[in-house]
C-alpha cells in the first residue's frame, strides 16, 4: 500500500498508468482514505498484540520464572520407582542406557504404523501412516513447550509448572543421575506412544483436521497432566496412600490405559465406519488389508518394548532389575500370544493370526506395570490372563456395537487395567525400587505372596481413577470437536476412501504402462475425486 509520504515522488516518476490513475482517484475519495486508516490501524493493533505475546512469553517462561526452579532433590518423588536420597552427579552409564532405550521406544512408532496400516483397509493406509508421522512431530514440539513441564516439572499434586520450553534445566533429572535432556527424550518417546495408541480405534473415519486437534489435546494436555498424577514430582496418586503408594513401573496405566480409553471415547463419539455390521446384526469386522505388515508391526512393537520396560529402570547399574524386567516382559508377551490363540481356537477351529498378535501385545501391556516387582512365574500368569482378556474385550466391543478397527481398547485399555491390578496380586516383596546405584531392599508383597489386599485395593483405585478421568475428559473433548463438525469425515470421502479424498493419493498404485499417470489434465470433462470439480482443460 502506498503511503502519503511517497505520493509526491510517485507523481514525478514514470509509473504505469493504471496504478497512478487509481491512486489519483483514490486519494480524492473520502471513503478510500478512511479505509486506508482503518487497515493501517488494524495492522498496528496486530503488531502490538504479537509484541505483547512475545513479551508475556518471555516473562512467564523465561529466565526470571526459571530462576525459582527448586534444585533441592528432596522435593521430588520422581517416577515412582526412583529412590531419592542424595545429590547425584551425572551418571554416564545410566544416561547411555536411558538414551538407547529412548531410541528403542521411539522405534515403536514403526511398529504402530505397520500394525495400524495392516489392520486398516487399503483405502485409508496413507491416512493412518500420515497420522502417525504427524503425531510424532507434534508430540515432540508440545512436549518441549509444555508437556514435559506439566508432567515432570515440580508443581502441585495435579499439574507441574516448571521447565516450560525446558528453560533453565538442571544437569540431571533430580534423583536419577540421568542427564536431563536424555530423560526428556525418553519421556517424550512414551508420550508419543500414548498419542499414537489413541488413533487406533478411530481409523478410517476421522477427518484430518479433527485428528490434528485431538492429537494436540491428547499429547499436550491429557497425557502429561494425568501422567503427572502418578509419575510427576508430588503427583497425588503417586504419593497418596503412603506407605502403600500406587505403583506403575513403566506405564500400564499411565501410557496404555490412558491411550486405550481416549481411543474408546473417540470410537464411541465417531460411531462405526459406513458398512460396518456387528456380530449380533449378522456381520463382523471389516477385513484387514495386509496381515503381513500387521504381524511384522506387532513384532517390532515387541522389540520396542525392550526399551519401554527395561529402560524404565533409568539405571544400568541396577543390572539385576534390568535383566529381570527384560525377561518378565518376554515371558508375558509369549504367554499372552499363546493364550489368545488357544482361547479363540475352539470357536471356529481356526488358528487366528490377528488375535495372536494382539494377545502378545496385551501381554506386553499388562507386564508393563508389574515387570519390576514380580518373578518369572508371575509374569507368565499375568501374560496368560492378558491373552484371554483381549479376546473377551474384542467380544464386548462387538456386543456394544463399538467399531475399533485395530483393537486399541482391548489391548491397551483393558490389558492395562489388568496389568495394574495384577501387581497387587503377584508382587513378591523381594524388590522395592530401582535406584541409580542399584535396588533398594524393602519390598512390598501382593495378595498371593502374603501381603494382604492393601496394595491390591490401591492399584484398583488408582487404575479406576485414571481410566475414569481419561474417559470423561476425552469424551467431552471429542464431543466438542464433533459439535464443531470436523471430527468425522463426510460421507462421500469415507465411501471413496480417505486416502484420495483427504490426501490426494492412494498407498498402492497398480501400474499399467508408465504407472498410468500423465502430467497433463485429461482432454475431456474429468473430475477431481475429492471435490467433484471438473479438471480444467487447456
Amino acid at each position: 500500500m502506498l503511503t502519503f509520504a511517497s505520493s509526491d515522488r510517485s507523481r514525478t516518476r514514470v509509473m504505469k498508468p493504471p496504478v497512478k490513475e487509481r491512486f489519483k482517484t483514490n486519494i480524492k475519495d473520502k471513503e478510500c482514505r478512511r479505509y486506508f486508516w482503518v487497515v493501517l490501524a488494524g495492522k498496528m493493533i496486530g503488531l502490538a498484540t504479537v509484541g505483547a505475546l512475545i513479551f508475556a512469553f518471555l516473562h512467564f517462561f523465561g529466565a526470571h520464572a526459571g530462576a525459582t526452579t527448586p534444585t533441592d532433590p528432596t522435593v521430588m518423588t520422581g517416577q515412582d520407582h526412583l529412590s531419592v536420597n542424595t545429590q547425584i552427579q551425572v551418571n554416564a552409564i545410566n544416561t547411555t542406557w536411558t538414551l538407547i532405550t529412548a531410541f528403542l521406544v521411539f522405534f515403536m512408532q514403526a511398529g504402530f504404523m505397520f500394525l495400524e496400516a495392516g489392520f486398516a483397509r487399503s483405502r485409508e493406509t496413507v491416512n493412518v501412516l500420515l497420522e502417525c508421522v504427524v503425531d510424532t512431530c507434534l508430540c515432540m514440539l508440545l512436549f518441549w513447550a509444555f508437556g514435559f513441564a506439566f508432567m515432570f516439572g515440580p508443581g502441585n499434586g495435579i499439574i507441574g509448572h516448571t521447565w516450560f520450553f525446558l528453560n533453565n534445566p538442571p544437569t540431571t533429572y533430580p534423583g536419577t543421575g540421568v542427564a536431563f535432556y536424555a530423560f526428556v527424550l525418553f519421556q517424550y518417546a512414551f508420550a508419543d506412544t500414548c498419542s499414537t495408541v489413541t488413533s487406533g480405534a478411530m481409523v478410517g473415519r476421522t477427518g484430518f483436521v479433527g485428528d490434528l486437534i485431538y492429537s494436540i489435546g491428547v499429547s499436550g494436555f491429557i497425557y502429561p497432566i494425568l501422567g503427572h498424577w502418578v509419575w510427576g514430582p508430588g503427583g497425588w496418586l503417586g504419593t497418596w496412600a503412603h506407605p502403600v503408594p500406587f505403583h506403575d513401573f513403566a506405564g500400564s496405566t499411565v501410557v496404555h490405559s490412558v491411550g486405550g480409553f481416549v481411543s474408546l471415547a473417540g470410537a464411541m463419539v465417531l460411531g462405526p465406519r459406513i458398512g460396518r455390521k456387528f456380530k449380533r446384526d449378522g456381520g463382523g469386522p471389516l477385513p484387514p488389508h495386509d496381515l503381513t505388515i500387521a504381524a511384522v508391526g506387532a513384532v517390532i512393537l515387541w522389540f520396542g518394548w525392550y526399551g519401554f520396560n527395561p529402560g524404565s529402570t533409568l539405571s544400568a547399574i541396577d543390572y539385576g532389575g534390568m535383566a529381570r524386567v527384560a525377561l518378565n516382559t518376554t515371558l508375558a508377551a509369549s504367554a499372552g500370544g499363546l493364550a489368545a490363540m488357544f482361547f479363540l481356537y475352539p470357536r471356529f477351529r481356526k488358528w487366528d493370526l490377528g488375535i495372536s498378535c494382539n494377545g502378545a501385545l496385551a501381554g506386553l501391556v499388562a507386564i508393563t506395570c508389574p515387570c519390576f516387582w514380580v518373578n518369572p512365574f508371575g509374569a507368565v500368569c499375568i501374560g496368560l490372563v492378558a491373552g484371554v482378556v483381549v479376546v473377551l474385550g474384542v467380544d464386548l466391543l462387538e456386543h456394544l456395537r463399538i467399531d475399533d478397527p485395530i483393537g486399541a481398547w482391548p489391548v491397551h485399555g483393558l490389558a492395562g487395567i489388568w496389568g495394574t491390578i495384577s501387581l497387587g496380586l503377584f508382587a513378591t516383596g523381594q524388590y522395592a525400587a530401582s535406584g541409580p546405584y542399584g535396588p533398594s531392599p524393602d519390598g512390598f508383597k501382593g495378595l498371593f505372596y502374603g501381603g494382604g489386599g492393601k496394595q491390591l485395593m490401591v492399584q484398583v483405585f488408582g487404575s479406576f481413577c485414571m481410566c475414569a478421568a481419561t474417559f470423561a475428559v476425552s469424551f467431552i473433548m471429542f464431543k466438542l470437536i464433533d459439535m464443531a463438525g470436523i471430527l468425522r469425515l463426510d460421507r462421500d470421502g469415507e465411501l471413496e476412501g480417505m486416502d484420495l479424498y483427504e490426501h490426494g493419493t492412494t498407498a498402492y498404485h497398480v501400474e499399467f504402462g508408465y504407472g498410468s499417470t500423465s502430467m497433463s489434465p485429461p482432454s475431456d470433462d474429468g473430475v477431481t475425486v475429492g471435490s467433484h470439480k471438473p479438471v480444467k482443460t487447456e
Partner: protein
Amino acid sequence: MVHLVTAVIKPFKLEEVKDALKGIGIQGITVSEVKGYGRQGGHTETYRGSEYTVDFLPKVHVEVLCDTADVDKVVDAITEAARTGKIGDGKIWVTAVDRVVRVRTGERDLEAL
C-alpha cells in the same frame, strides 16, 4: 434363452448392487476389480506437491447371467442401486449368450443358472 448383463460401477456401490440383485432373486454374480476411463477421463491426484492425472480409475466389473425375460428387471436393479447422480457412475450393457453349462452336472442353459 440366457443373456449376460455386464455393468461397470463405482467400487463402493458394489454392496448395494449385490443386495439389489439378491433382492430380485439372482443367484450368482461374478465381479472383478478393473481400471478404466470413460467420458470423465480420469481424475487428479497429488503427490509431494505435484498434481497429476491418473487416467485409469478403479471400477468394479459385474457380470450377471440371467433369463432373457428378467433382463430389464436386472438392468433396472443395477441402475437404481449404482446411481449416485455424479459423474463416473458407470455403464451397463447386455449381450446374448449362446450356451451356458454348469461344470459339475453338465446342465445346459436355463437349468445351469
